[in-house]
């Protein structure tokens, strides 16, 4: 395994989004994973509609909360095609699900997988390199005040509450860390990203790992 890996280096990660006052981190997380997986499959990298997932994933509660696995389950069961973000733009509130004919351009998934990698973060590294960015659910209470650096304390496994996207890792320094894309805008953290220590399941980053199969 390489000491350093980052899907952004290959231009396969879209820009950081801002969920504003809408509690739909779960939708931003899986849409980010699908955007990258779609591009890794050889298609152009493009922003897909988070609002479509917020409005239409009936297993979740829109801006009031949801789960990455139930959103992927909905996408997989219904074969819904995700439209471009420009066609179904983000409004930061839950709305009525808009129907589009199946002939419409869009990105659908062929399945999804879910893993528990607590104590198996080396396996998670392999998976990240093999399939693309991974949607995870973490304990992010202390992230309210994060400015930069590598998170190593003040969060725990077993209290997952926020969905984000792992896009890479860096083991070249004294403290290896995961590179994590958040959805709180670019002015938060390290240009919208956060670094989380690897190897100790810090913030429960390896507890609930999902990704789409294209």
């Amino acid at each position: 395994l390489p000491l350093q890996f980052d899907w952004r280096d290959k231009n396969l990660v879209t820009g950081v989004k801002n969920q504003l006052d809408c509690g739909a981190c779960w939708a931003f997380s899986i849409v980010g994973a699908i955007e990258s997986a779609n591009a890794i499959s050889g298609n152009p990298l493009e922003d897909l509609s988070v609002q479509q997932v917020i409005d239409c994933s009936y297993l979740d509660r829109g801006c009031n909360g949801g789960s990455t696995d139930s959103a992927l389950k909905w996408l997989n069961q219904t074969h819904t095609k995700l439209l471009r973000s420009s066609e179904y733009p983000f409004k930061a509130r839950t709305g009525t699900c808009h129907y589009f004919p199946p002939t419409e351009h869009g990105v659908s998934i062929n399945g999804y997988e879910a893993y528990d990698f607590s104590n198996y973060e080396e396996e998670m590294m392999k998976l990240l390199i093999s399939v693309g960015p991974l949607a995870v659910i973490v304990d992010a209470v202390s992230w309210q005040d994060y400015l930069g650096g590598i998170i190593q304390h003040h969060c725990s496994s077993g209290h997952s509450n926020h969905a984000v996207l792992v896009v890479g890792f860096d083991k070249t320094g004294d403290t290896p860390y995961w590179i994590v894309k958040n959805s709180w805008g670019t002015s938060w953290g390290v240009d919208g990203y956060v670094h989380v220590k690897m190897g100790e399941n810090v913030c429960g980053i390896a507890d609930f790992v999902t990704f789409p199969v294209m």
Partner: protein
Amino acid sequence: FFMEKWGRKYPAGSLPSQERYQVFLKSLERHRFLNSDARNTSDAHYGINQFSDLSVEEFTNTYLRSHPPRNKDYYVPKKKAFGEKS
């Protein structure tokens, strides 16, 4: 400075404004506590950002709205982790 940087406007002299200021002061206390564990330069650092005028409860209720699966049965057992497939 915070209000200017993050475009906040609180009605001058109103009670909510005072309460909001107390929330901000509590954030500063929290930053001191969070930073007290830093042992080297690579450790995370915490301070004033766009969420500093929110209480922990407000922040949690607004932004931390994802939850793990209620039924974890479908999760692949650890021993069948991806690396072993190949």
